[in-house]
């Protein structure tokens, strides 16, 4: 029966006697799709309560398919007119894999430190869980281990309230916890930093959305104690003006 129908098929379709096999030079009807994106989630000017002006960036760029992606993330700031070099808070190159519909696991390497020629950078390995939690909390949780073996955990969460079809109110919370003390980088173990922000964003287009916002930044636990001992302020507030931009 099987052989017979093949024969019939071949007779009906002259020139395609090997239908289903002579297709090596045919194009794929549907191809794997690869693309990329550069997203500046925050690109802003900050005015602190200390009357300092800062330029701040928080960017993610990726390229790849649906499951596998190469991801680059970076955050940093530059205090304007202080003559100090730019502070690179992180620059990470990661491989990301979509492990579940809303979450990707990422692993890679990163570096951070002061962007001056003579400063030594802190290099580290990093793993992240990035994705969308139930109720649309957008999260990025990273665990970092540097060359000294110091372990740090950073968690960022954003949420969006849709005000209109093109404007949003967006709370943001970021905290840092050191799992170990680090003499070299002057870090104290425990919850060390909390930053809470709120911004109002308006889309000119989906790709370009200016925003204004406020934030509160505070040192916590041992880190705060240490800062107090040194006579430093443990909290900072500020206003931001910036844009969320992607292309």
């Amino acid at each position, binding site marked *: *029966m*099987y052989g017979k*129908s*093949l024969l*019939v*098929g071949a007779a*009906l*379709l002259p*020139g*395609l006697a090997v*239908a*289903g096999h002579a*297709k090596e*030079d*045919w*194009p*794929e*009807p*549907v*191809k*794997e*799709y690869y*693309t990329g*994106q550069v997203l500046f989630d925050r690109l802003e000017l900050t005015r602190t309560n200390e009357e300092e002006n800062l330029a701040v960036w928080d960017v993610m760029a990726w390229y790849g398919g*649906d*499951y596998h992606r190469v991801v680059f993330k970076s955050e940093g700031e530059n205090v304007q007119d202080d003559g100090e070099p730019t502070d690179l808070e992180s620059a990470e190159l990661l491989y990301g894999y*979509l*492990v*579940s*519909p*809303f979450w990707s696991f990422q692993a890679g390497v990163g570096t951070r430190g002061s962007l001056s020629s003579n400063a030594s950078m802190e290099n580290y390995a990093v793993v992240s869980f990035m994705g*969308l939690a*139930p*109720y*649309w909390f957008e999260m990025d949780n990273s665990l970092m281990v540097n060359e000294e073996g110091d372990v740090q955990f950073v968690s960022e969460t954003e949420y969006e*309230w*849709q*005000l*209109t*079809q*093109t404007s949003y*109110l967006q709370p943001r919370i970021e905290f840092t916890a050191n799992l170990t003390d680090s003499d070299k980088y002057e870090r104290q173990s425990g919850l060390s930093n909390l930053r809470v922000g709120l911004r109002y964003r308006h889309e000119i287009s*989906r790709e370009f959305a200016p925003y204004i916002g406020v934030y509160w930044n505070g040192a916590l636990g041992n880190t705060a104690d240490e800062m107090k001992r040194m006579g430093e302020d443990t909290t900072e507030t500020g206003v931001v003006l910036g844009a969320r931009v*992607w292309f």
Partner: protein
Amino acid sequence: MSNEFNKGRRKFIKSAFTVASALAIAKVAPTWAVPQGRSFKDQVLTNDEIDLTIAKSPLLVGNKVGTPITINGQMPGPLIRLKEGQRAKLNVTNRLSEDTSIHWHGIILPENMDGVPGVSFEGIKPGRTFKYRYDVEQNGTYWYHSHSGLQEQLGHLGPLVIEPKDGDIGADREHTIILSDWTFEDPDEVFRNLKVAEGYYNYQKRTIFETFEDVRQQGLEKTWKQREMWGQMRMSPRDIADVTGSTYTYLMNGRDSQMNWSALFKPGEKVRLRIINGSAMSFFDVRIPGLEMTVVAADGQPVKPVPVDEFRIGVAETYDVIVQPKQNKPYTIYAESFDRSGYVRGTLTPELGLEAEVPELRQVPERGMAAMGMGAMAMSGDMKGNSMNMKHMGGNNSHMTHKMTHKKELPVENIKIKHRESGHGAGAAMIATNPVSRLHEPGIGLEDVDHKVLVYTDLVGAHEWPDTRDPERQIELHLTGNMERYMWSFDGQKFTEVDGPVQFHHGERLRLVMVNDTMMDHPIHLHGMWMELENGQYPRPRKHTISLKPSEKVSLLITADAPGSWAFHCHLLYHMKAGMFRVVNVA
């Protein structure tokens, strides 16, 4: 009877030649769509051998110049009229700088004539001509379109009408209406936007103020319960269409609402409207306020007449309706995108230049509990250990529960469907825990209208189909997707992830069971073979494209009588591109 037709026809041809302005319009839109109206024997491309040239040319679309893909200089392409029993000879020449193809949608033909690059042939290279040859063994309303890349979005499509052997169209006059969605954006850019920015084209999302209003009206607890499920699933009840009126200009025979495509009638005449949804992504709700429409064919195949006031037409579906306007006044032909983000209208009129009132767009609909596969649970009270209290949820599905208790039982309702134990992987953001038949439902946004809307269970085949065997075998496929990354697939696997084709045994009678594990409607199209819809009617209606609502399961009977490889896919263009595609091999 045919003499009467001929008389009427002569008159109209005469009037056509006297209307110069109409001929001017014909230069920017298909000649077959001129508003004089044509009697059924006015054929446009009907030569024994038909030449079609595919090119890119600047053309006025609405009030702006775009660069669509034209077929013989037109977008949409010319109306091709063939006759049942003839041999189709269609020579397609590619004047583009990339490969192209034409797929004859709904036509039963040999696999190497089906026009799907990579499945039926290698495609048509630039500068080359492909000669399509096949015997036309059916009649009715069909269409044709490119199966290469995203060319369809650029207007590479047109209507295909096959006259019955006896020439009887069952009406005094006919008009062909092809609906499409046009964007001035590059389709590749549209696809990338969908890929990188979820909800890019959706400007109808729920705002926080609407939620406050719900709290005010129905209290915090009920509002929370309604929002809770959507929040847990990370999905939006307003996610109806992926690409919307925010970028689309909806077209009727290549004209926007402003240009108002018009079709003539004489009061008292029976007019057959052949309506084709040639959109890339848009479902339309079609009505002619003030006129009852009698559905006489679905997907080109005759059905027992069903009088309706409105019908939803999924992407790639066709419906033939008969209208009989008695009054000497214009009527609006209104096609509203099912997410209510836009519409296109034309006019059915006794003389040119008239127009009737154009309805307002209706309210943006929102998906209810039925979309999550909760409809049946609400009805049966079977909570399956789920702690959520159905009484508090999905306020707008009580009417549905009511209707469901009155419908007859379909074969699919006794079929136990299976999900893979792991779900369907990262490519599937949800599984329908309790999918049900929704063939008797008109669909989202039409649940509460106060007039008759066509539902799939209304369709009864006009006669028996040749194969009356019971199915010997069953194949189950799940429609799956992940909105966040715009991944679309069957059984959680994109086309690029599967090892081989879906195997049909030549000659067998099959039951195909499909389960929609997504929150979207999907028009699923099988090439090369009919699908008889098990909708509880006999004879069953047979279709080339079947739309599934969220969390719906349907069953279809297929006779695997067409040897070779055939495409099987979601006809939402960007879903197909994203991977919701399979090859069916009949051997």
